[in-house]
């Protein structure tokens, strides 16, 4: 493996798919003028469209083949080297000890050739992700074994012994295997539906409906079917809207089931191993010690179905939105679990933690007072004074409803907040209609911040921000005593342990 190597020539297929998906994802608005041109082209529309498609395909093929030719990798001395880029050459060097995760994906178009995609995620401020699309399965396994078994030079002396004792005792232990019924539940509760709405709205906003002939034709067709009676139009319109919504929900569920099909989580050698996906089997493993915190969340629809989602937060989110999205994509989560499972699972990761021993404390009522006084009162008074007093228009009084609606919601939000600690771990609950518990061991914390406004100083309160390597946990309006106590305990835990946290 010491020499520079190319991917399998079939990797060009991978590039075709990748570029095609990227175009669809990022430039679908650009395709709308094309569609418009198609409708405006008149008689030789098929010729023109054929020409455009053929040109695009040729370009796609050329770029894909060039990408394949220009991509080279080398794995040597505990380091991964990559050279890539058609127009802009890019070189990347990544040491094994910076690698967070090695995943193996098996897309449907690679299955006949026995090839897989290896994704390598790194940690740290520059959160790079490498993907080797098109390597033989055996090579992928050996890369993964080599990277994951690589021992960092120091500090791991202690953890190494722990790991080796684990190796002796544990066998492959199945933690959860989700049937389709659970995945359907997950599909109903996750946010894919909203994403669909977003895309639809995007299409709607981008299209100039009046300029399109087929729109008029379509509306004539509809009035032909339904008649011009306003009530029947109204009924049919609402039925159509409900129909579209149902279709969207079903699409969302179908998509969720496809991407998470046959979800299986196992544990072996102090490592979690997850496989999922119908068309593209994804295999990801995660070293248990790399979990920074676990997040158990339950949206409003999930509450109705009595299910939760567990996220295992890792190091490696970068500062910018693109990296955040990337880390979201590779997020390690367990869909649709019951409360009992979430508790027993926390026990697997944090054996010393006991949910039953904890009662969450609520935050101060000052949280509600501040929101109402400094946010909702101005929202109420300013429009009211301008519209009602300034323009003598009584409709301005409507804004009096703002605090009436907002107050119970703010109180609900305050009631959701809760925090507790057993001296080793912290639990923070937050949410609004849904709820979320974040559970983390104190020794994995990076920094602690205390924020105080003048009002909080008077009432001996503070906002506590606990920064972990994967996310920041914020508890607003806690008694200063508790905040200082948390800070003290957290700092003590960090400073008294030399357990590897990353």
């Amino acid at each position, binding site marked *: 493996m010491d020499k520079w190597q190319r991917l399998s020539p079939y990797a060009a297929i991978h590039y075709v798919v990748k570029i095609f998906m990227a175009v669809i994802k990022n430039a679908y608005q650009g395709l709308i003028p094309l569609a418009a041109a198609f409708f405006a082209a008149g008689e030789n529309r098929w010729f023109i469209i054929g020409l455009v498609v053929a040109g695009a395909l040729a370009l796609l093929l050329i770029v894909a083949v060039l990408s394949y030719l220009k991509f080279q990798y080398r794995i040597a001395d505990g380091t991964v080297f990559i050279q890539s880029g058609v127009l802009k050459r890019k070189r990347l060097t990544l040491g094994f000890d*910076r690698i967070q995760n090695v995943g193996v994906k098996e897309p449907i178009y690679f299955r006949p050739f026995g090839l897989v995609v290896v994704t390598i995620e790194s*940690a*740290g*401020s*520059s959160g790079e992700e490498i993907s080797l699309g098109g390597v033989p399965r055996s090579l992928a396994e050996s890369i993964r074994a080599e990277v994951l078994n690589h021992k960092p030079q120091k500090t791991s002396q202690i953890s190494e012994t722990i790991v080796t004792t684990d190796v002796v005792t544990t066998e492959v232990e199945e933690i959860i295997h989700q049937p389709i019924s659970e995945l359907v539940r997950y599909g109903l509760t996750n946010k894919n539906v909203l994403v669909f709405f977003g895309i639809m709205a995007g299409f709607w906003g981008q299209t100039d409906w009046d300029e399109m002939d087929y729109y008029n034709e379509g509306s004539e067709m509809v009035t032909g079917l339904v008649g011009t009676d306003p009530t029947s139009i109204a009924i049919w319109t609402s039925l159509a809207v409900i129909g579209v919504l149902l279709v969207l929900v079903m699409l969302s569920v179908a998509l969720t089931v496809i991407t998470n099909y046959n979800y299986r989580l196992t544990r072996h050698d102090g490592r979690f191993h997850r496989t999922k996906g119908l068309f593209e089997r994804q295999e990801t493993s995660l070293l248990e010690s790399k979990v920074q915190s676990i997040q158990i969340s339950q949206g409003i629809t999930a509450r109705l179905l009595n299910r939760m989602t567990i996220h295992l937060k890792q*190091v*490696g*989110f*970068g*500062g*910018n939105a693109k990296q955040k999205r990337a880390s979201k994509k590779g997020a390690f989560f367990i869909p649709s679990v019951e409360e009992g499972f979430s508790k027993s699972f926390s026990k697997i990761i944090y054996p010393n933690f006991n949910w039953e021993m904890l009662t969450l404390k609520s935050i101060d009522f000052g949280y509600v007072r501040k929101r109402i006084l400094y946010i909702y009162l101005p929202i109420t008074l300013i429009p009211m004074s301008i519209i009602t007093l300034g323009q003598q228009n009584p409709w301005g009084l409507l804004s009096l409803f703002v605090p009436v609606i907002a107050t119970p919601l703010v109180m609900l939000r305050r009631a959701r907040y809760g925090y507790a600690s057993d001296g080793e771990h912290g639990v923070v609950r937050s949410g609004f209609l849904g709820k979320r518990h974040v559970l983390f061991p104190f020794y994995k*914390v*990076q*920094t*602690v*911040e*205390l*924020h*105080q*406004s*003048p009002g909080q*100083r008077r009432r001996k309160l503070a906002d506590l921000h606990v*920064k*972990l*390597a*994967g996310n920041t946990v914020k508890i607003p309006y806690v008694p200063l005593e508790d905040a200082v106590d948390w*800070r003290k305990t957290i*700092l003590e835990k*960090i*400073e008294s342990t*030399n357990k590897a*946290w*990353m």
Partner: protein
Amino acid sequence: MTAENNNNNAVALGNIPRDETMDFVALADNYAKSMIINVSAIWSLITIGAAMLHYFTGNIGNPLLYWQVYVLYLVPVMLIFILAPIIARCKGYAIREKDIHFKKGVVFHKTVSLPYNRIQHVEVESSPLERVYGLTTLKFFTAGGGSADMKIPALTNEASTKLRAYIIKKAGAKDAKGDHNG
């Protein structure tokens, strides 16, 4: 002025306080002064720009209005003379055996606490103006998150060199190899 300040830092570095308390050390004395000069320079640039615009386009409307506008420009400059020392006084850092703390904020107080064994790397920075005053900014980074987790402005060159060496020693050899995107 600088001598006195160095002395102050040296004491703080020399005898490390007990773990329970945080004894905050003030930033360099000329921090407020450098802030005033910085803000004044920016405002004078804006004022000169506006005056040039006024001169070349001719004054349309009431000239008295323009004159008042120029007086308005002076308000923030005068304000900074009052505010800068207060802002500077509210900032400070505390060094303990195993962690470092930084506080700031005139109205909204904020204290950041950072244990040495979580520091990934340290950056030393000084802007041209800071260099005139012999000041540097120290930035501390932990894992995850792009921006600095703690930023201590206005340390004298000597204090920052000492502090950096002390913290790197405490944080272990992690810093020595530098960072990949440094």
